[in-house]
């Protein structure tokens, strides 16, 4: 199954770059959903010879939540909040892409010492996981809207999920904790807060949330 894992890894990298290069909010949400679909396949391919019901359940739940439910909620929130459909970055899109390429180099460098003995797997998975996490962080800090910050957070979680499902899945319940609690709870509360922000300020630009500072 290794060739297919490589294909998925490359597609994930491309999805990350698309996220950084697009100016449209809807494309961002779509990309996160596509990424989640790809991720659903990772545990199945990775542990193809010892598939268990638990693994399939994790993959199914994750795909449903992150590829269907959350994008739908985000799209609805974006529509109801109104405003422009641009992502409104602090740094230009070209620069974002360049920084993204730099981050990919950094993640390849960081993944160097983190070799795992035994187990045949795609050598790309660890750097791709790190890269996805960093892209998520970059989106959080470089985009103005509260909703794009949530998108960045989801991308970051995708990266963490790649890692967990590929390497830490033997540990009972750990991956389930990550999937269920993180995705559901945090984002629902964030969604609620976005709602309040929009009512209070008539906009969701976090750069205007700047009263509190020293």
């Amino acid at each position, binding site marked *: 199954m290794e060739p297919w894992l490589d294909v998925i890894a490359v597609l994930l990298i491309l999805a990350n770059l698309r996220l950084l290069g697009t100016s449209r909010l809807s494309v961002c949400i779509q990309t996160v959903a596509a990424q989640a679909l790809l991720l659903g396949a990772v545990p199945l391919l990775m542990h193809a010879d010892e598939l268990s019901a638990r693994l399939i359940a994790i993959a199914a739940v994750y795909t449903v939540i992150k590829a269907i439910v959350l994008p739908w909620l985000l799209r609805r929130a974006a529509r109801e909040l109104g405003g422009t459909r641009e992502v409104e970055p602090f740094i230009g899109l070209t620069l974002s892409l360049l920084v993204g390429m730099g981050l990919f180099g950094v993640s390849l460098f960081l993944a160097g010492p983190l070799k795992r003995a035994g187990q045949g797997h795609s050598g790309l998975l660890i750097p791709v996981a790190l890269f996805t996490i960093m892209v998520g962080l970059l989106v*959080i800090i470089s985009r103005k809207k509260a909703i794009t*910050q949530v998108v960045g957070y989801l991308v970051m979680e995708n990266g963490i999920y790649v890692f967990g499902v590929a390497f*830490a899945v033997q*540990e009972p319940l750990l991956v389930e904790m990550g999937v269920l609690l*993180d995705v559901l709870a945090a984002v629902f509360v964030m969604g609620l807060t976005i709602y309040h922000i929009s009512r*209070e300020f008539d906009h969701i630009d976090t750069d205007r*949330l*700047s009263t509190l500072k020293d």
Partner: protein
Amino acid sequence: MIAALVLVPTLAALVSFALRRPWAARAVLLAAAIAHTGLTAWACVVGPAPSMEGWLALDATGLVFLSLISVLFLACAVYTVGYLRHQVSQMADTQEGFLFSHGRQATFVGCLLLFLAAMTLVTVAGHLGLIWVAIEATTLASAPLIYFHRHHRSLEATWKYLLICSVGIAVAMLGNFFLAVAAARGDSAQVHTSHLTLSSLLNSAGQLDKTWLKAAFILLLVGYGTKMGLAPMHTWLPDAHSEAPSVVSALLSGALLNCALLAILRVHSVLVAAGEGAFSSQLLVILGLTSLAVAAVFMVGQMDFKRMLAYSSVEHMGILALGVGIGGAAGYGAMLHAVNHSMAKGMLFLLAGNVLAACRTKHSPQITGLVSLLPVTGPLWLVGFLAIAGSPPFGTFMSEFMILRGALDSGRGWVAAFYLVALGVIFVAMGRVVLAMTYGRAGAATPSESEAVSVAIALSAEAPTAPKRIREQLWSIASPLALAACVLMLGLWQPPPLQNLLRAAAQAVGVRP
């Protein structure tokens, strides 16, 4: 037994959510707080056995932090009853004057109790994944508390808190995955036993993969360090602490930050057992010193007294990280300091609430003469400052001194020097604000006028308009008084059982006193 500690506040929270009458919710809060303290005292005496295959286990370190949370919560519950009794539906903002409302009282009480349950779970969890879940739960339970006053500044603070802490907690999850990789031994025989319980990690520490373990520690330190308020990940802390209701600030500062510290201590103890203690200690010392430096810089010239207290929390978390990192005598000192800091900071935030209610401003230059205005809060405010700044005879002096001695004993002269300079700067910076607030003529809010004008006003308005002493409610002063007595007692005499407990806690963390 251990489960009861978590279940009691959870059930009380559910009851409270369903209640319609505010007074009933307040009664539930008080009853649950007393029950929780009772259970904690019982756990101190009995020492319950681990349950659920080690997922729940209460050791000495957990017990220290559990007692501390329980006592502080009881104090805050008493204060909250008084606080909620005087909430009216519309309040004028203290900075910008607009009217705002706040959330339902029953919801507030319910979230407080859920917050308590989540923090209790952190202290009794013996599994790193469960600790992670509990810390995530503290974030979710406390976000509505910060947003109790419905206005734009508290919303901004809540958003920052949620986003920054969620990112931190996500990084900590990655750290847990790394730890699982380090602990996986490739034997598929024991698929269903967890490698991430503390006891299993400590027992097999020698076989952990060192590279993955170190990487896991860095990630967990950054992740939980965000929640703990270690610089440079502390940026949510001053905003959340200054905008939340004072009683929530007291709990955030005195209890929540300690929970995150406990999570870091758990991982640190694994690294020490694996023989990599030098690595994790070094990182803790560096982050501790950074926090001290950042806190000192931002406290100089800080005008908002609640933000000043928040930066003081950053400072003390830095001191705790430093103490744990140094180890030896400083390890014991750090445990004692955690107790002292919780009591002193809890008291100061509750007093800050009293001051805010009386003076209607957080801008410290507009406040003078607290001693004559508020007969109990005023003097206590000064006592609290002396306690938090580490002057004798308070407990903080003892613990800060132990950490200093530990630094010198272990040959870290530069660290000790840096530590002393930072403490000195912070003492002066806080002292200037607090002394100006405490003494002088009551209510002389003349920050911008020239000296002569203010004197003229003062002379002309001698007797008739001089603000009267405010009669203070027992609800709002009982808790700060009790906490002040605790800090004072810890400085003069530490009960032998407490000493043994703290020593055992320091030992469990891996720093031999």
